[in-house]
């Protein structure tokens, strides 16, 4: 889902989906690492939700080098 957002084909609902899926993992996995594997996603959505929304709105990542058409 993150790749989808990053590739510019994501929808606004995908942001909630990502949070939802991460919450399906927390507290339910056999492996205790599962709990912490979700924190990068949950943390960034919590603090940088605007950036996720901008990715969706602008259909891709504005900060990724290859998207700058070589104009460094």
């Amino acid at each position, binding site marked *: *889902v993150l790749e989808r957002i990053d590739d510019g084909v994501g929808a606004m609902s995908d942001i909630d*989906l990502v949070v939802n*899926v991460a919450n*399906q993992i927390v*507290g*339910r*996995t*056999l492996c205790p690492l599962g709990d912490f594997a979700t924190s990068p996603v949950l943390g960034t959505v919590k603090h940088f939700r605007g950036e996720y929304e901008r990715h969706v709105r602008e259909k891709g990542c504005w900060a990724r080098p290859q998207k700058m058409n070589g104009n460094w």
Partner: protein
Amino acid sequence: MAKVTIDDKVAQVPNGTLVVEAAKKVGIEIPVFCYHPKLSPVGMCRMCLVEIGTPRRGKDGQQEKDASGNDVIAWMPKLQTACTTAVSEGMAVRTNSAAVAEARRSVVEFLLTSHPLDCPICDKGGECPLQNLTMAYGPGQSRFPVQSKFHNDKRVPLSDLIMLDRERCIQCARCIRFQDEIADDHVLGFAARGRSMEIVSLSDPGFDSKFSGNTIDICPVGALTSRDFRLAARVWEVDDVPSVCPHCSVGCNIFVGERDHQIKRIVPRENEAVNEIWLCDKGRFAHHFVFASDRLTRPLIRTNGKLEPATWNDALGLVAKKFSESKEEPDALRGLAGDRATNEDLYLFQKLFRNVIGSNNLDHRVGWSASNAGADIVRKYGAGSGTNLGALDKNVAVLVLGADIEEEQPVIRLRLTSSVRRYGANLVVANGRLTRLNEYARQSIVYNYGDEAWFLVGMLRVIMDEGLENKEFVATRLNGFEAFKKSLEPYRLEKCAERCHVRTDKIRDAARLFAQSQDALILFGRDLMVAMQQDGAIESLVAGLLLVTGHVGRANNGLVALYPHNNSMGAMDMGVEGGREARSMGKVPSSRSMYMMACDPAVDGNFAKSEFLVVQDLFLTETAKLADVVLPAQSFAERDGTFTNTERRVQLFRAALKPIGETKPDWWIITEIAKRMGANWSYRSPAKIMEEVASTVPGYAGMTYAALAENVKMPQTPYWLGNPSDEPTMIAMGELENVSSGKLWLSAVESDGRAKFDLTWVKPVERPRADGELFTLAVARSLYDRGTLVNKTKIVQSRVPKPIVEINSLDAEERGIANGTRVRVSFDARVIELDARVDGHVPPGTVLIANNLDGTTALPMGARAKVEKV
């Protein structure tokens, strides 16, 4: 006991019960994938997450109460797996809360992201727990696009029998745990991690286990499928008919899956007392003989030296005419009936001889089953009712004498393994060689072949010396104890130990364990049966061991004879033996006329054709090729009948198919012959014959078809085919009903609780000492053989081992033999050449050859053999 509240229902269950099992007790289903009642829980699939809480105690250690006086429950902050949590007093469980429903929905959703949507072509479709639980608990719609589905290899053959679809696997490890815990063949494992994790075979050849087919049943998805049944039919179109496996003497309960009058597959039918829910691969896959293209379909009569098709009327008329001629001289007609036929057939067979012809000249011991022995002591001291070989606990000592259970009764090996591993039974294994079962033995004993009696005398001597006999039993139920004790006196333990070549401390330990255990069983196999025929003392020593220690007449006590064929026990019960003495192995004495039912002595050689030979069989066997009249019979799948298994359990099986060609059931053929000989017989069905058996054969009283059909587990109807209003409850695969069907006939010691029994002493044979140059030839049997019942099934052919000769490393080194060396074995004017295997399974001075493989038939057990390098 602990009191658990599950969704307002209260369950009283023993401490240590898992929450998922406790919930079943009160009719609440907790869905599972990785959990299986027969396997240890791992909590991997997360499907069984529930809310669990325990009573909260205050600082004073007292239970806290709320305002209305109810216990305050401290709910755990996270959901817990019901399949790994054991109950405790006062525990509370919620399985119907929103959090639980949400967890189940998300687990199913995650599983489905990696699972293909190929249910319409999947063999599991229709009986698939993933399918069912998705319908019951899944989200119904995926939030992930179908393009992002995970793809992987869909055709990974793990062996000739099992195909793995990696895409469908949900990594529950049921198959791995089955192989590790139940079959104890560690041939499967996980490789890699995360989404790339896959099931791999760790053995060469792939998935090398006799029980691999069971993983198909317990797989909760269609990842492991049968290559025999692959894409052959949809499971709901297959009609499952309750039946009994026709191969070995365990008598595993099966369903014959029939569609379009063809056998599509065989699956195990649950019977806790016989096969639980397991089946060996031979039983599961080797059913193709039923539809083999060379099945006999019409009666044949020899005319002008050639077997020509004939009508039933002509064939039966000819047989009856010839048999009637021998009425004048009864011994001119000899009957041989294989111990693969049903009880009904065997009963009529002997009745034809005894009542119609007036002869006692009949037998069932043909070729290999010539080793059937020990029936007398089984009738008297057979294992008590309620004995369950799969759940013997630490109070039970099991003495296994002269048996190779892994090869000959594989499912019993599996069940003994679980007795030892799971419940702590004490196993003593004694034989002339090491077998698979020795891995689980507390005491492994390897005696000299031929000196079995001395080992038993040694054990009895220890019991007498140390006063370990059951004094109460000896006083109330035994005659002749003092005389027996006196006869033992000349036999010192050291002498016995020296003769049978077993250390005294091992004999002592085995004897103490056997005598001092609360319960004790003796299982004896073919190796000991052969020895019994050569040394009459063994039978009375085995009986003596049980009687002196009082281990008879109760559950988990007494004797189990491990016979070679599916109805060996029944053949003896029906009395298909008599007249002339059983001849030496495989040698069939000739008579003027002979009537052979379901047996093929000519395949072992040593068969002289008689003047008039009638053969009744499924195939044109070697014997049938010599016959004057050949009568086509029916296999187990085409008719009703009963088999008596090796534990004396009489079991009913039902016809699954229409008759093939003009074939007729054996009982019908015998009845028609009898009628044509003037007998007033009117048997219309096997059920009627069984009624007569029940009234005449001792021990079979009350064994009507109705009684035998009690508790027979019937096929499950998929719930959507049943009443649409039915709730889809208990649909998780692996749901056990703990049913047990069939009826055990009681041994003499159990049916009469006060009868007295005689202890008899028979002097053991003192064999001359073996000289150093010659080897003792030991004869094994391989599970997969070259017999007609197996060689029609192509996919198991790769499992049939190459014949080899096993030799001890000490002997091998002396003669320059290594693994794979070509070796010439000569005995009794026969010479065979085989590859050698040096693996320490046989003691020095013994060589072992499997009897039922290419070029190795009719081997004389215990012969003196010369072994040399080619």
